[in-house]
């Protein structure tokens, strides 16, 4: 912020999303929004860096020369067990926003576009493997990766053509190795595209779809910070 590097510390919790405090100014920040809510920098927002949640194996094929955070030996005993997210689904919440068909801890993939917010239930996306929709009027494509767990969102338009239909062509039963494995095909050019959104063959080869940021969050938290959100499959845009 303003050329000052901030060092953050875990400082509290606000409706089950944590607060952090920077050493340098003593400002308190909300984790999910990156926004300062109290202190000298109140009102400022930390720039969000695009990030992915995916399996290590898939990430490694895309970034073979990347680096991985190491365990801190003193605290390994406290690290989450493998089924932590299953157990977490059953934990109580202090906010609800429950609706018919939507439970507070349902996992959502939240997308922002043109000022609109829309939540895509993770289970629906995983079942469909590829779905196309509109958020804020923009054509959006969500696709399940070759690891069958990670999801990425792209703007589903090529060039000036507007919306294009995509089909997930990856054969999960015969997984093809490599980061550039063809994952889906578009109806306009018949090109195949990989999970990084880049065309690996066909007329569109070499071009890439624009990535859109996805926030994977529990419904109650997404709804709390996006009161006007719509929900794919439940409420219309």
């Amino acid at each position, binding site marked *: 912020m303003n050329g000052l*590097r*901030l*060092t*953050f*510390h*875990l*400082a*509290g*919790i*606000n*409706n*089950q999303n*944590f*607060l*952090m405090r920077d050493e340098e100014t*003593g400002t*308190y920040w909300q*984790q999910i929004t990156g926004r300062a*809510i*109290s*202190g000298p920098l109140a009102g400022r927002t*930390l720039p969000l*860096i*695009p*990030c*992915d*949640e*995916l*399996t*290590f*194996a898939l*990430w*490694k094929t*895309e*970034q*073979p*020369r*990347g*680096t*991985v*955070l*190491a*365990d*801190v030996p*003193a*605290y390994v005993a*406290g*690290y*989450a067990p*493998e089924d*932590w997210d299953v157990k977490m689904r059953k934990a*109580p919440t*202090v*906010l609800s926003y429950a609706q018919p068909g939507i439970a507070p801890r349902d996992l959502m993939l939240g997308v922002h576009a043109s000022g609109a917010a829309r939540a895509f239930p993770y289970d629906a996306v995983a079942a469909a493997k590829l779905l196309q929709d509109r958020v804020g009027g923009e054509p959006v494509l969500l696709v399940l990766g070759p690891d069958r*767990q990670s999801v990425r969102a792209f703007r589903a338009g090529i060039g000036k053509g507007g919306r294009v239909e995509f089909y997930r062509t990856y054969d999960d039963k015969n997984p093809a190795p490599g980061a550039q494995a063809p994952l889906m095909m578009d109806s306009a050019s018949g090109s195949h595209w990989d999970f990084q959104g880049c065309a690996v063959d066909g007329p569109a080869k070499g071009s890439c779809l624009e990535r859109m940021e996805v926030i994977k969050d529990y419904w109650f938290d997404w709804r709390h910070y996006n009161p006007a959100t719509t929900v794919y499959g439940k409420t219309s845009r």
Partner: protein
Amino acid sequence: MDLRAKRRLTYGLAITGSLAVSLFFLVYPVYVIRPFRHQGVQELQAALAVLRFRPEVMAVAVAVAVVSAVLHWRAQTRTLWRIAAVLGAAGVAILAGLSRINIYELMFHPIGQPAFVAAGETKLDGDEKVIAVAVGGAARAYPIRIISYHHIVNDVAGGVPIVATY
């Protein structure tokens, strides 16, 4: 009431006041900012304001309590009252000390200096989920198993200072 008695009373009230203030400044934020409790917008703002001024308030409270206890000791001859005043001042010091504890970092220790392993050398299981970023030409993966404990990793990736949070 003679002058000396008034003085003793004043010092005693100063110590009691410091105790009350330090108790409030310690307990109110802990009461409001608790897991599994709903935080309203205004009470959160109040609790955070208390937290932001707490170190200075505690320092003043300790100074007032200690000085008052000393002055009270000199103005008082009865042992019981003297001890009470000293205990009061000690109580303020204890509350001030407790207020320096960050219970969240006690439960979820921070990573001081994060260490990284090359992708090809880590023993991470292929199925483990990671949060991945590419910044300034560097590609980083933060295993969820680790970052869900530490919650925060202050890092510099590709020359860019970032903070990874989960």
